[in-house]
């Protein structure tokens, strides 16, 4: 009760719930149908379908953190110290290791035997 908003937020919570469910349904529908124009083409290193999935995931993560974990109502610098720290460290590790993974593939794949 740090914030004196004792009014119920039920309506907002249900709206966020509806939104998150809708995003999940869209993801699952795309995952089942996999339209060839999105799935078999390439855009910035991966298929547009994968980009859609990644962006929708981040949207869902935002909804959960901001509205369910009440990040929206925390002080600005509490929010920033949590969000900026995590985003910086995770992107750092992710970029390095994914580049490394592609390199390993490039080096090793030619040596895998496929003719018997």
């Amino acid at each position, binding site marked *: *009760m*740090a914030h004196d*908003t*004792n009014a*119920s*937020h*039920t309506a907002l*919570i*249900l709206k*966020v*719930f509806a939104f*998150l*469910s809708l995003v*999940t*349904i869209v*993801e*699952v529908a795309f*995952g*089942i149908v996999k339209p060839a124009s999105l*799935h*078999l083409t390439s855009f910035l290193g991966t298929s547009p379908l*994968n980009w859609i*999935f*990644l962006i929708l*995931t981040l949207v*869902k*993560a935002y909804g*959960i*953190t901001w*509205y*369910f*974990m*009440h990040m929206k109502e*925390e*002080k600005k*610098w*509490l929010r920033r110290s*949590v969000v900026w*720290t*995590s985003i910086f*460290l*995770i992107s750092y*590790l*992710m970029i390095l*290791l*994914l580049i*490394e*993974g*592609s390199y*390993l*593939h490039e080096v*090793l*794949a030619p040596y*895998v*035997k*496929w003719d*018997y």
Partner: protein
Amino acid sequence: MEATIATKEHHSWDDDKSEGKPLKSSYGKMMMWFFIVSDALTFSGFIIAYGLMRFKFIETWPIADEVFTHIPFVHGNFPMLYVAFMTFVLIASSVTMVLAVDAGHQMKKNKVAWYMFWTILGGAVFVGSQAWEWKTFIQGSYGAIQMNDGKIIQFVDETGHQVTLESFVTSHGGEREQDVRSKGLWFTSESALPEFTVAEVTEAYKKHSELSIRTEKIIAATKSKEILSREASLNYLAEGKQVVKGANLKVNEYGSTLFADFFFFITGFHGFHVFSGIIFNMIIFFNVIIGTYEKRKSYEMVEKVGLYWHFVDLVWVFVFTFFYLV
């Protein structure tokens, strides 16, 4: 002197009524955020390691839609649907949790208790579903053959759909008996032998001209696994080492063993978080019922445990994307 002595009026961070609390946050909530950030880094370390290995074996990684295709009590091929249900259950239990926090702000004890109850129930359904998903994955669906160099080959019919080994192979009783204590082999033990031998599968394959063999290799243009000609198939079969059914940490009928390793490790670690979350929720639930927070005039404990519960949901959103969607 006074500055270094804990006086009676001022014991801790939370007793400070001067509104001078760092970031206007209670001590407990701040520490929960500390924990969540470090746990998020742990999870991202695991998921990124999965990404590294997936990029390393990008050409041969199993296609999730072909691995997780089952629904309880229903036969058939239904990719995505069950895991979508699990995701929905976890989001719904997050919603009841946040409603419990909201009811706590208004000091409505009964409402808090009921919403906590639904949250615990949702968590239990999720963990149960996860256990079922593991069981199905461990038991496997079609069976495959592992080659001497570790590659997996599977069997498909003319339409390109996988067929089970049982549907075309007949067993002649196997090469040997399983080593068990009751047969005097007290010094050794092994798990059940596969139902068929490689020789039996090869023999049956030669008789069924409608079958083909599918390798782990992904054809970039169609994003589907490569299907071999009949002649090439026999060369692959000649390299067969063992018959594989299901998945474990050593071998995986769906393809790369690393896929199974990471699946068990990451969903297992997440499932353990859900399990401990259920325990925390139950403790808080009983405290709500016996009126602890009513006497304390604050339901902040519900809020703290809620933060943890939402975090578990947040992690699942990412696990769902990287294991099932992308």
